[in-house]
């Protein structure tokens, strides 16, 4: 069954604005990851946050994790046109060996 669900499914912002994407999941996890997919390309790993962490930063990316609400958010600050892509959260459930499960993604468009 589908584990993560991103919200919104599509987001359009102006360059320089911040973009926030949310992910909700259903079962207990070991970790949660965020990936980016440019059109016609493979997925690229952005950041991994473990279940005992609440927040993590990487450059312009900030990820939060609330295990009590089974949700995560990805914040991209000072967005650039090059950030235009689809963003997916992926969960590693406690049940299910090596079964990283992806959400449906958020399609972000950054307008120059």
């Amino acid at each position, binding site marked *: 069954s589908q584990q993560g669900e991103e919200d919104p499914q599509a987001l359009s912002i102006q360059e320089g604005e911040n973009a926030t994407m949310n992910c909700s999941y259903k079962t207990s996890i*070991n970790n949660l990851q965020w990936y980016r997919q440019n059109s016609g390309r493979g997925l*690229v790993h952005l950041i991994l946050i473990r279940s005992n962490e609440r927040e993590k930063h990487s450059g312009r990316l900030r990820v939060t994790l609330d295990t009590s609400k089974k949700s995560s958010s990805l914040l991209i600050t000072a967005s650039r046109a090059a950030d235009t892509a689809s963003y*997916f959260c992926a969960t590693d459930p406690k049940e299910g060996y*090596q079964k*990283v499960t*992806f959400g449906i993604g958020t399609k972000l468009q950054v307008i120059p």
Partner: protein
Amino acid sequence: DTAVSQTPKYLVTQMGNDKSIKCEQNLGHDTMYWYKQDSKKFLKIMFSYNNKELIINETVPNRFSPKSPDKAHLNLHINSLELGDSAVYFCASSQETGAGELFFGEGSRLTVL
């Protein structure tokens, strides 16, 4: 050097045909995967191999047969192709025995006519 490479990138074929997609990783990872991404961009795991051994088979029709000749290669053979098999197939690998960061190939777009 490409970390995870898959061939072919595009594949157009007729219903009923048999086709294969090849995947190789030069990262030294023990675990490799096949994912299917449908037209709505939903990414679903199909198979996972750890050091040539099948770990996950997600109720994929037995027309799909993965083969791992060594831990650096995981090929996908599809028999009797159907229209619904049209999708982008992604190969991926990971280092950790649990699920850590996945490294993806560029995808193979299969179109069944």
